């Protein structure tokens, strides 16, 4: 992916403006939005999906806790998968009583953790209701196709709702909160990573590619104006064919979102925070830019979807995860700094997701196989940071959380509890959480303590 500079983005948007003729009506609209938007009420959720199944066992390692120590970890992971203790970034948790080591590439995020703005959430996984190891072995209420990438990616993004099987949980949260953005018609859900299941809902999502959302610019000549007008007219033709109508709808919504976004961006001044040039860095920079012009869009709530990978480290795991976590840490900390630059670090929460963790036990090829519960990060000044939330699994084969004997953790926190905590902070009322998370009532507590 090429580096999109601020100048590039603004140049593209300025050209697009001409064709879309947005400038005339914009002044009126921004006055309307200003009247209804209160700065203090803005909130954003940013999901970073680590696709492939990140090995959470190497994200955060117990060094000295009540129940275990580094040696327990090292004994199982061995030379091919075990991080050396001296390379880990040491942090405290549980009111300072426990010591954990963070992956060597998480230096920047470790700093944010120490400031109390980042938390780890241990052993999160997909579950429809709490089950025991015994029930797992009986096959009771075990998530379907637990170790399949596609099934679990879908679950983490959608939390399948009977009756609305194709909507993502963020899409459902956006539908519940749509009124908070009125009268703006700009989509709540914005993916900078292509179409996402996560944001699918009754409302359309916006998606941005390589920093651009919109048709290439027009020179404003009569010929081009006529062409662009015809392009929009043709979108309305009813062919009676479902696939054609769908493409037309998406394109029409896209033109509308593009118009709004590009004129909003053209009015913003650039952010000063520098972002790294990696794929995830560019995506988070894109997110920051859009948040920066939230007032021009007239929105109070936004949910962003970012994704990268490939974390599916069946082999050569150490060096591959090293590279990926290095990119993640640099990008996330730049993003935090950008929210601070905008003065809204209390109003933006960034969190990770991944379809599953990986076996504690290595497999041949210096990697590990698909597993289940894994550890995740939540970042933002509103987060109860500087701590580890949830119950850390005992790192032992055949241990109390290990359901297969290879170090596959029965989750102590369900994805629905994790998501409900985020959604509640975001503004979904308690009695609406069931519309977003179908099985939440099976779990206690429904909301966790990290927000």
């Amino acid at each position, binding site marked *: 992916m090429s580096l999109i500079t601020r100048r590039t983005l603004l140049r593209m948007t300025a050209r697009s403006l001409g064709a879309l003729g947005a400038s005339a009506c914009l002044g009126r609209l921004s006055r309307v939005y200003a009247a209804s938007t209160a700065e203090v009420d803005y909130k954003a959720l940013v999901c970073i999906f680590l696709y492939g199944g990140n090995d959470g066992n190497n994200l955060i390692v117990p060094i000295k806790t009540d129940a275990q120590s580094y040696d327990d970890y090292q004994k199982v992971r061995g030379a091919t998968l075990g991080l050396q203790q001296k390379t880990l970034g040491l942090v405290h948790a549980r009111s300072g009583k426990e010591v954990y080591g963070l992956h060597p590439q998480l230096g920047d995020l470790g700093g944010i953790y120490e400031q109390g703005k980042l938390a780890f959430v241990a052993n999160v996984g997909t579950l429809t209701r709490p089950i025991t190891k015994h029930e797992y072995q009986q096959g009771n209420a075990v998530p379907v196709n637990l170790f399949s990438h596609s099934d679990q990616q879908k679950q983490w993004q959608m939390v399948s709702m009977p009756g609305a099987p194709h909507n993502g949980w963020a899409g459902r949260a956006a539908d519940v909160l749509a009124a908070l953005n009125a009268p703006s018609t700009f989509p709540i859900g914005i993916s900078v990573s292509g179409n996402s299941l996560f944001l699918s809902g009754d409302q359309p999502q916006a998606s941005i*590619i390589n920093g651009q959302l919109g048709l290439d610019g027009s020179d404003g000549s009569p010929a081009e104006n006529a062409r662009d007008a015809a392009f929009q007219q043709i979108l309305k033709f009813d062919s009676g064919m479902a696939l054609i109508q769908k493409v037309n709808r998406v*394109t029409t919504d896209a*033109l509308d979102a593009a118009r709004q976004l590009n004129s909003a961006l053209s009015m913003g001044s650039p952010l000063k925070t520098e972002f790294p040039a990696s794929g995830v860095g560019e995506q988070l920079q894109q997110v920051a830019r859009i948040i920066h012009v939230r007032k021009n869009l007239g929105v109070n709530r936004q949910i962003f979807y970012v994704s990268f990978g*490939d974390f599916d480290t069946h082999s050569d795991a150490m060096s591959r995860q090293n590279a990926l976590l290095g990119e993640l840490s640099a990008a996330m900390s730049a993003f935090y700094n950008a929210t601070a630059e905008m003065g809204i670090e209390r109003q933006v929460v960034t969190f990770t997701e991944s379809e599953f963790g990986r076996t504690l036990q290595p497999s041949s090829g210096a990697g590990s196989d698909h597993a289940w519960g894994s550890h995740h990060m939540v970042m933002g000044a509103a987060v109860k940071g500087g701590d580890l939330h949830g119950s850390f699994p005992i790192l032992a084969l055949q241990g109390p959380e290990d359901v297969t004997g290879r170090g596959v953790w029965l989750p102590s926190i369900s994805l629905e509890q994790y998501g409900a905590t985020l959604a509640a902070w975001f503004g979904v009322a308690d009695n609406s959480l069931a519309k977003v998370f179908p099985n939440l009532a099976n779990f206690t507590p429904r909301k966790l303590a990290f927000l």
Partner: protein
Amino acid sequence: MNSVALKIAIAAMLGFVLGASAASAQGPAAELVISPAQINVRAESSRKFFARLTSGAEAKVEWRVNGVRGGNSTWGTIDKDGMFTAPEVPPINNAVKVEAVAGRVSGAAFVTLLNPVPSIAALEPKTLTYGEHEIVVRGNGFVAGSEIKIGNATVPTKFVSSKQLSASVKAAPVAGSTLAIAVFNPEPGSALSRPVPAIVESAHPKLSYLAAGRFLEQASWGPSAESIAHLQDIGIDAWLAEQFAARATLYKSSSSAAENLIDEQSEFFVHAVTGRDQLRQRVAFALGQVFVVSGLKTGQPRQMVPYQNMLLEDAFGTYTKLLRDVTLSPTMGVYLDMVNDDKGDPTLGTSPNENYAREMMQLFSIGTVGLNADGTETGKATYGQDTITDMARALTGWTYPGKAITQGHNPENFDGPMIAVEANHDEGRKTIAGGVLIPAKQSAEQDLEGVLHTLSTHPNTAPFVSLRLIQHLVTSDPSPEYLRRVSEVFTSSGGDLKAVVRQILLDPEARRGDDSPSESQAKAGHWREPVLAVVAMMRALGANVRADNRLERFPTNLGQRVFYPPSVFNDYSPDYRTPNGLLAPEFELLSSGTALMRANVVRNLVEKGLNGDAPCDLAPFVALAASPGDMVDAIDQALLYGRLPGSVKEQIVAAVTATHDYNLRARNAVYLVATSALYQVQH
């Protein structure tokens, strides 16, 4: 009369003549003003001249052309009121003088005679079959030097009369199936007539143009004018026979270990646009989206080239052979970790890697849920974790090709299938998919045979594989009956991919819509995936692909990067449904971003030839642009085979009439048709 009277008469005549000369020699020409003073007049058209004295009074004058009173048929005639009519043909010396004479004063105007503007009233014949023909052009304003133009080319023209020309024309397949016939008159006053369209078509078509276009959308990288003509000429059966026999266009072999597939990506597009083995390439591309390897992990030419060539060569073989070649491909061995995957070692605490075993079942053969032949689900899972573990054990013991060894591993080598090292193979008994028991003490090869046989004959495999091929070639959501018919061919033919592909293409459901657009079902077709959308346009518009192209950038921006799917799950999933429940795998790539980006790619194609990598000659359309309706009809033929709805055509015609630049008209019209969902959804 006596001689004196005669002398006086002669003297009087002489005096008159001399007197007139004397008068013109002496009289000021400026006293009589002729208007217009200077003018071009086209053949056979008329122009009135006016003569006034400088005093302003009208003059009663005698009009002459080149000195001849009233003019003549060579230089043009002029009546007593000054109405000048140009001759039928301008003379060689086409500058003539129109004079008005009144007594001793006169005035002149200068007229340049021009050829007429030609116009065509009729063509015979109006449609041309491929090959040589005499055409007769009837109209007006033709001259001896008139030339008939076919598109941009001029043909030797026979002048029959001012109303008829003829020429010998070679009609060949052309994008849009329409030749613009025009007449060009030379100097003086050269002018081109408005074009008149002549449809070019097959003489004895075995199937209609629409049917051929639809078929080729399914069975090739997209129709071109030539490929439609050829298919109409020989018919579907003969075409399939040709395609099944056509040799694969293979990638150049490479031993490079650089992490860079740029050359191969360039080759991909050259092969797709120009290769003759169109159906094979299309099927191999579909298979490559089922049996996925990605350059993100196996991105060296020495890895990717043999794998892609294997798919091309196996595309028309049996499913079992394909599955075997995929399983033993060293490239796949790296991608899904089966190479050098040894039996478990309790002392080291390692177990066999489960990656290939899992994906072989989930993605390459049976899937996770039981299927009936028509694709409906049985409600039972096909395998559990135990099966995966045992399958993984059955597939242990394979290493890179090379020397036969009894222990350890061979060094990296991607040429040829992996070989077995029995010491590394788990010889215990296993229960694999379908509850099939593999006994203990079998060799790696024997275990592999057991796995391949089991998966090839598992009842799921026929519908599983058939569905994916149907989705890639014809439609995202086939009816259960269609899928069953194809599954049954899979089963009865023993997994013969030729037979399966033939059934897919010839099935009545695929062919529905060949006779008329209104037959197409509401859910039919599929959104062209990015690579297909870009390549199909290039073929339809006759693009010239550069050998060193970097065309992969365009579908990459649309979500599909050639050779680099993000994971073994491909760029999009066969069971992706939209939020409304529409089964449409490619829509996983449809977002607000990609929907608009697609239009930008089309625009780049028509304006810049995809950054110069695939310039398209829109000349056949430019040649018709003076009549926008005819031009849009031709573009309709090229891209939609005549299915453009009338109201949409009107909107496009109105839009392009906003400019008089014919190149711009052609570009904008192609843009509007190619960006429309009518084109982007193959149906």
